[in-house]
Each structure stands twice: as structure tokens, then as C-alpha cells.
């Protein structure tokens, strides 16, 4: 496993970055698609939209996952992916409970 040189903030943090990309990436993909499904064009009842929604989870997830290694440390990856994830889930369940 590689580590960066002294004095640099960048850390490989393979395990935590990978887990952040895998888990938080998937969670983020789901909640973005959930918002899109209910409040995006056509709304929840649009014909065949459920298939489109299912398809789009994967490219969003993969893209986030593959970008995770750009974070300087594993902790930052969890923080910077975790906060928007929590926020979006909050927004989603708030909107749904008001409906």
C-alpha cells in the first residue's frame, strides 16, 4: 500500500475511501434518483419512468465511487459525501411527509 511523502496532507486511506465511495456513493445515487422520481419531469406516475430511474442509479453511483480517490483523506471523503447524503435524505423525507 502506498503512502504519500512527509508533510503532505494527502493519504491513500484505501479502505475508508473505498467504503465511502461504495456505500455513500450508492446512498447518494438512490436519494438523487428518489427526488428525481417524485419531483423531476413527469412526476412519479410517468409511464416507464421507473425503468429509467433504475438504470440511472448505477452511472451516478459509479461516477461518485470513481471520484472518491480524489479526496485528500478518507475522513474528508466520508465528511464531504456524508453531509450532502444526510441533507438530501432529510429533504426527501420532509417533502414526502408533507405530501
Amino acid at each position, binding site marked *: 500500500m*502506498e503512502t*504519500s511523502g512527509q508533510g*503532505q496532507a*494527502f493519504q*491513500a486511506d484505501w479502505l475508508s475511501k473505498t467504503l465511502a465511495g461504495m456505500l455513500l456513493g450508492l446512498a447518494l445515487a*438512490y*436519494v438523487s*434518483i*428518489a427526488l428525481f*422520481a*417524485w419531483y423531476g419531469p*413527469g412526476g*412519479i406516475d*410517468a*409511464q*416507464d*419512468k*421507473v*425503468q*429509467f*430511474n*433504475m*438504470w440511472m*442509479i*448505477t*452511472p451516478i453511483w*459509479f*461516477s461518485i*465511487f*470513481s*471520484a472518491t*480517490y*480524489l479526496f485528500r483523506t478518507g475522513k474528508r471523503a466520508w465528511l464531504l459525501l456524508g453531509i450532502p447524503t444526510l441533507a438530501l435524505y432529510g429533504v*426527501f423525507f420532509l417533502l*414526502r411527509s408533507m405530501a
Partner: protein
Amino acid sequence: MKVKAEILRTYQSVHTWTGICAGLLLFIGFYAGSLTMFKHQLQAWIAPIPAELAAATAVPPQQLIDKAIAAYPQAMAKGFELDIAHEVPYLSWYSQGGARGMNLDNQLTYAFLNEHGELTTHIAGENKFADLIDYLHRSGGLFGEIGHDQLGVYVLGIAALLYFLALVSGVVILLPTLTKTFFALRKEKGASRLWLDSHNLVGIVSLPFHIVIAFSVFVFAYHDFLYDGLGKFYGDKPLFNMPTKTEQPYHINDLPKLELLLEKAHAYSGQHTTVHVSYNRLNSPAPFATLKMENPRALVRGPDTDYLFMHPYTLDVQNSSFPQGDTGTWGNTVATFFSLHFGTYGGNWGRWGYFVMGLLGAFLFYSGNLLWLDKRTRKDGEQKRSTLFMAKLTIGVCLGSMLGVVVTLVLGKTLQQSAFALNELYLWIYYLTFGAFIGLSFWLGARKASVFGLKALALGCLGLPLATMFVQYTNPYAASWLESIWVDVFGGVFAGIFLFAANKTKRRSQAREASSIWSMQAA
């Protein structure tokens, strides 16, 4: 473009490890995927239409259906397949087994009208060569089943994720030098450099293709799970609306004329031609007909054709793979994802394009492994056990799996007239050849095995036209060989390509570059 050194190093590691873990499996998936583009041609080559069927009379299909219903009401009511793409129509039903799953001992009864216009049946085992190719493509040839799908499909789904990571990381590490070396193929700097340049060029040029393949493979493998997860966000909303059933069963004697069904299909889409109708459960409350619709000038969603689902009695369109009009936006977008994976647009040109891109994809994984091996050997200054192991495995798996298919083709065709259970034989030949070559690779070492394997592949490909000649010679009335002549022609072409590659590899190993895995002594 400037990218920080540590980011480059990180993505270099991501690229290496994802590539090493998933590369060999993806190699099989890709070259077999290339072959699936022409699986019907290969199927027609290995098991041509029997002569008696080829000599049947051309009649309006309705006449055939009426006679078959009168003679075999029970079998026909369970469901039957009607092929109307050929000049001479024939229909078939399963007299043993069924369409679902990979049953190797399925038996089909074919019905057609002989030269005197009499109904004739011909019982034959269903030939599954095309399914073997599909199976290799979708599962990489891994054994085992989970639920209703093969284990290998799920493993390949994970490999697709690794492959996406490998693609992105590959692009990241190329960013700093992209503009300088993009089109460079530096021959003069030695073979390793040339391999690296070709690897990069193929990867970048076909990037959109690879991105679509990567995420669609994952969706194909895991769509059930993805839907389950999505269902949680839909709350009480059902994901899909189920059709309502009627109570009273229908009866096959009331089946409307085929002509009416085809007219309805044509009214739904004028650009499509119906080539195949599959009737199911005709004497039940819920009968259905699946129409395969061909349209060489449009995106189609299935592996070959579009699908139209109709009620065979009321002739209502129940569903289709190509939704029409304003409500079709989402469905049409999804159809695009399917056709981008299957390469079903642009007719035969599209097929050839996908065939070539699939092979280039396989090259990407093969060359990636070789580059890694080269680099490891150079860095370590000696041949480590792990490097040697990977070299043997790479040569064994890549060449062995291709050799397996070629040997299966040649033996499968020559044994066509024999009493063997062919479908099981296909699997045996494939796995035996594959396993034997991997064994040989470990025994001979990567260098000798690669030269031997490439030569064997050349010989095998040359065997394709020879097998056709052999079959024609021993049984001149067996079948029409002209229909699959291109398989023979390309067998010859690929024989030349593999021979060229074998000679190149041999010369390179004789040159004994210090830093090349090809200079390794057999260990």
C-alpha cells in the same frame, strides 16, 4: 493538464488492481460478446437447417397453422413458435423441456408442409451453441447458479464496477500526457512502448462504448436488487402495474387469423417487420403472444429485434419494447441503453462495429495484463513467482477460452451427424480445451504457451472451412452451407491473423528483451 503527483499515484494503483482483478473475466466476456453479434450465423454454421426442412413447401403460414392445430390440438394449445422470416414457414413447439432456463436436453418438434403439401413433423434436440456463446458472454463461463440467474452473471456485475473504476483511473493517469501522446504509436521505442501506446489509444477512442458497457452490465446483473431498493423510495406506489386477468379460458379453435395479428402489429409500427411469433398458453385465461419485430434502421431493444406483446385473441397491444408517441420518452431512453449495449442499431454495419469494438475491448484487458507483467519484471529486476503465475494465467485463460470456442465449433460441426448429445458435448469440449490449455500454459511457461496457443488458434480457425467441406463431402444433402459461408471466410481471415501474431510473438521471444516477460525462461 496538470494533475497532482499523489492523485496520479493513487489512480495508478486503482487502475492496476481493478484491472488485474477483473481483466481476465472481462476478456472472456468481451470476446464472447463480439461473437454474440453473429451468433445466429454461427448457429446456422454449426447446425444448418435439416435438408427435409429446407425442401419444405412455401405456403401461406396460416395454412400450416390450421393443419397443425387440427392434427396436434393439445401441443399447439400449450404454445408454439412460428418463424415467418424464411421463405418457407415452419413452426415448432417443445415436446420436452421448455424455453426457460438452459435445459440441454430440450426437444423441439418442428412442423412444416412437405413437397406434397402434407403436414410433416421432425423431432430434433434444440441446438444450444448460440446459448453457449451467450452464456460465456454473460457469465465468463463460471459455474453455478443463484436464484434464477447464473453465479457468473453476478460476478461479472462486480467486475463491471471494477472495470468502470479502471476506465476512470486510466483516463486520470493519461490526463497529463494526453495531448502529447494521444495518437502516438511509438514503434521505435520498443515493443513495450508500442503495447502501451496501443492500450491507451484503444482505451481512449472507445471510452464511450466502454462506459455504456460497464454500467449496463451491472444493471443487467443487479436490476432486481436495484428495483427493490428503489421500491423503498416509492412508498405505497407500486413500481409496475400488473395486467388484470379474465376469468374464462380461451380456446385455440377461436384463434384469430395470423393476418389480423400482423396487421395490428403493422398498425402499431409501420417501420417494423414481424419475423417471429411466439404463442403461449392459448387454452388459458391469460394467453399471450410475443412478436419479434425487425427494423434494421432503428434502435431496437432486444439482442436482435424489438418485442411487441399482444393478446392473441383480442389482439390488444399489451406492451412493447418500443413505446410510441409522447408517453414514450422514458421508455425510449431506456431502449437506447439496451441497444447501446446490444449494438442493435445500424443493421449489419452496427454489428460489425460492435464486433470490432468488442475484440478491441478484449485486447484492452489482454494488453493491460501484459503491460503490468512487463513493468513488474522490470521493477523487480527478476522474475518473481507471482509475476510468473500471472503471466501463465493470462496466457492460459485468454488464449485457452478462445481456443475452447474454436475447437467446440469445429468438433461440434463435424460430429453433427453423430449420435452424441451435442449440447452437453459442447460444454465438455469447451471446458476440456480451456482447462487443458491453462494446464499447458503452466507447464510450458507463458512464452512457449503463447506461441503454441496462437498457432493452435490459427489452425482451429482454418478448421472452420475444412469442417464445412468435410460435412459437405460426407453428407452432400445435409444442408445448405451457402447460408453460413461468411463464417468459413472469416475463419480463414482469422487463421491468418493468429498466424501473424504467433510469428511476431516467436520473433520477439527470440530477441529476448531483458525487460520483457517474453524473455522469461519457462519455469
